[in-house]
């Protein structure tokens, strides 16, 4: 098996494994964000199935603030790694 790729097989495995964890992290971030903003913005009596104007603008601001908290804590953890 000729391997004229600059990366060895082992290095490639590590790249894929890291990429997988990175993706799992993104999926989890998205799910936690979605749940947090649902809890903060949506009244849970469910009088209707549409989002009203107040809920819509709450969602937009909530996503934005959640994002900022992610960045803030990312800086604090001192990692060069961006949250996404």
């Amino acid at each position, binding site marked *: 098996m000729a391997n004229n790729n600059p990366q060895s097989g082992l290095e490639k495995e590590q790249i*894929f494994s890291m990429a997988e964890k990175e993706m799992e992290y993104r999926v989890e971030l998205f*799910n936690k964000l979605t749940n947090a903003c649902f809890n903060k913005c949506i009244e*849970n009596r469910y009088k209707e199935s549409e989002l009203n104007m107040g809920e819509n603008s709450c*969602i937009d601001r909530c996503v934005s603030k959640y994002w900022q908290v992610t960045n803030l804590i990312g800086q604090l953890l001192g990692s060069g790694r961006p949250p996404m």
Partner: protein
Amino acid sequence: MDKSMLGDLDNLPEEDKLRMSSMIDQLQIRDSLRMYNSLVERCFNDCVETFRRKTLDKQEETCVKRCAEKFLKHSMRVGLRFAELNQGASTPD
């Protein structure tokens, strides 16, 4: 969640692109099954309070449907905003 959020595959060799793409598919299937489970959990917890009979009454059924629809709409809107932030398209207050 939208596939595009999981990363840009354009500058990979063809063989790795395939493998990465299959990995993303696997994650999406797992994620959608989990989402289904947690949507059921949420709407059950919010809508079903009494256990005097073993079938949902009309009111509980309506509540569950609205809960699920509302969550899906919410989730879609969050997805849009999230994608904007990922592309750095942030606007002032």
